[in-house]
């Protein structure tokens, strides 16, 4: 195909694209400027620092899109628009509650973006993914073992380690490795024929999380494992058996270790413990309702004064201060990304991408559900973060990396590869 013909084709494609990234980026920037401006008028401390952080965030955002569109030839940037929109919501909320934490959150977004780009490059070649399976699996197990050895109990769980003054949650990083190791080509899956090795690896991860008493993350890992196991084997009976085994195991744990059940005693009874173990859930329900459709305005809420308002309860803060419409947008964006991942899986150029995309979308959905339904007492409160929005560096990095897995399943992510395929055809 001649260069001229390519240019003509690109022009036609540009005309037929229903999604105008520049308009969307302008709208996202407008949202961020309005909300960031509101925060700057309200905070009393570190105003200059927060202003610099917001400005840098906007520069990074624009720089990414300009480079991605013009240097990397990216034509499909909807996922990044959603990721930047959600990260922006998180950054603004965190800066309004803890202005001094804004810089850390911004650095986490930067590292997350870096991880996103690196993972996209790694996922380009399925042979590279296959070759890295064992080192990544060993790394994950090692990281969890290190966590068990070094971590100190924090909020009843052993999931934080301190490295040079920086707190890291290894289980968040292991989420990326967990999906990376589970994604394999059909040829490899069919040659292995059994789930045993992956089952052992997964049980090791989930077991380590149980030992850490991080039940929320353990549940996320287990649900993701079920999705991946189904996609790897296509055998519903085996998956059912594993599910039944897991339920039985959980029952035995609750029977022999009653302190585990105690942690969830307020579930469905939060009003009975409204000043005790149901304090957070009841405040989320009360203050979310007072936010209405359009919210009370950033900085005008009362939930921000409750413990963990920018981590576990951030959905409540969004409902109260930003309003129910924005909160629904947050939830729906993950739901539609999952639909997109499912559609991608049907057309993916390898099972590596199909498994990685669907598992990532499932993980994000499960985590979102545990957070949103946990704080609203529809599910037990397990203390997991809201992807992209909650305060926390490793959680932010993990969220961006999971989006990279979804994006890699789209052939449009690799324009040179797409052109090669078209030329071959």
């Amino acid at each position, binding site marked *: 195909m001649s260069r001229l013909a390519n240019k003509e084709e690109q022009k036609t494609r540009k005309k037929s694209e229903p999604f105008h990234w520049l308009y969307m980026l302008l709208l996202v920037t407008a949202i961020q400027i309005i909300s960031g401006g509101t925060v700057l008028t309200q905070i009393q401390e570190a105003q200059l620092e927060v202003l610099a952080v917001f400005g840098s965030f906007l520069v990074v955002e624009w720089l990414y899109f300009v480079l991605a569109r013009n240097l990397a030839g990216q034509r499909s940037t909807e996922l990044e628009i959603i990721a930047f929109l959600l990260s922006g919501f998180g950054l603004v909320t965190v800066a309004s509650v803890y202005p001094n934490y804004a810089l850390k959150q911004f650095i986490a977004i930067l590292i997350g973006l870096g991880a996103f780009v690196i993972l996209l490059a790694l996922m380009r070649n399925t042979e590279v993914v296959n070759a890295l399976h064992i080192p990544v699996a060993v790394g994950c197990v090692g990281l969890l073992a290190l966590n068990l050895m070094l971590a100190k109990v924090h909020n009843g769980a052993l999931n934080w380690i301190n490295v040079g003054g920086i707190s890291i949650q290894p289980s968040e990083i292991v989420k990326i490795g967990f999906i990376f190791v589970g994604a394999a080509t059909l040829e490899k899956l069919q040659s292995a024929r059994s789930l045993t090795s992956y089952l052992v690896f997964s049980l090791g991860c989930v077991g380590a999380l149980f030992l850490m008493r991080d039940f929320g993350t353990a549940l996320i890992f287990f649900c993701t494992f079920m999705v991946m196991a189904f996609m790897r084997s296509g055998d519903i009976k085996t998956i059912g058996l594993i599910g039944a085994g897991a339920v039985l195991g959980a029952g035995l744990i609750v029977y022999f270790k009653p302190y585990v059940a105690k942690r969830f005693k307020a579930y469905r009874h939060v009003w009975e413990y409204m000043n005790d173990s149901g304090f957070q859930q009841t405040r989320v329900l009360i203050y979310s309702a007072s936010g209405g459709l359009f919210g009370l305005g950033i900085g005008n809420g009362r939930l921000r004064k409750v413990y963990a308002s920018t981590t576990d309860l951030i959905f409540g803060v969004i409902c109260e201060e930003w309003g129910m419409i924005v909160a629904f947008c947050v939830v729906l964006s993950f739901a539609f990304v999952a639909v*997109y991942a499912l559609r991608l899986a049907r057309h993916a150029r390898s099972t590596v991408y199909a498994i990685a995309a669907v598992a990532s979308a499932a993980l994000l959905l499960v985590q979102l559900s545990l957070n949103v339904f946990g704080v609203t007492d529809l599910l037990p409160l397990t203390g997991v973060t809201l992807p992209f929005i909650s305060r926390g560096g490793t959680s932010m990095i993990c969220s961006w990396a999971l989006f990279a897995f979804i994006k890699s399943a789209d052939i449009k992510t690799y324009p040179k590869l797409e052109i090669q395929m078209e030329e*071959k055809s």
Partner: protein
Amino acid sequence: MDFNEIFDILVIISRYLVAGLAVLVLGSCVFSLVGRQFGKRIGSYLYDPGSKTRLPLTRWENSVGRSKTCDVVLSMPDVSRFHAVISKRRNGWVVADTHSSAGVFVNGSAVVQPTPIAHGDTVSFGSVGFVFVDADEDEKEQEAREKRRAFSRKAAARAAAMKPEAEFYPALIDEAGDKAYIITCDSCLFGRGPDCDVRLRYPTVSSSHARVTAQGGAWFVEDLGTTGGTTVNAKPIGQSKRRLHDGDVIGMGGVIFLFNEHYKVKNRTDAEGW
């Protein structure tokens, strides 16, 4: 209205604006992501010439085996439950044996490593053989077949149209009147060279000397930049295209010919240009 009141109003507007913009951005992203078209369908297949059945390969990676969960199910006893995988890669299609008991063969050779397969190759799973049909190549072949058919139809129609006047052709007759150079095509190259439609074996004639063409029912001659030049009725035609009339005298490198628009061919073997 003081500054604080204006500021409060702006804050209220911003709340509505942020919610509206968020819905707009998300709506556009969702519309674009969920409504995405994923290019053309993979249409390659395995063809069994015996039963004339086609087993479509609709995915980039297709599992082949006896198990019902396989993409291509082969219910034959010597086919393993998970026998092989046929994948579409960047450079073409590849077949891999996934530890089957009876093996996979491409054109009779056993597959040990993932092996490339081309359009028309015979791929066997144990004793069960199929012809691999690559959709892209198949499409190209069909196009070529269609072109050939169209060409044959056109040629047949042309032959049928020419049949009643098959004995009359335009021709160049030499000075002595004993040799006729018949013009049998719409664009006839005259010259000494072996690639010419009508070869004029005279030393003064260039290897590609002149071209005689039919346009709108009339005949024209043009010189192809020769040193000897071409004349019509003793006038050099230079680089221009000159119309020919019955009885015109054409000179090519000093050799004279008479143009006869309706030359009657008695015996085709006597005439040059056939």
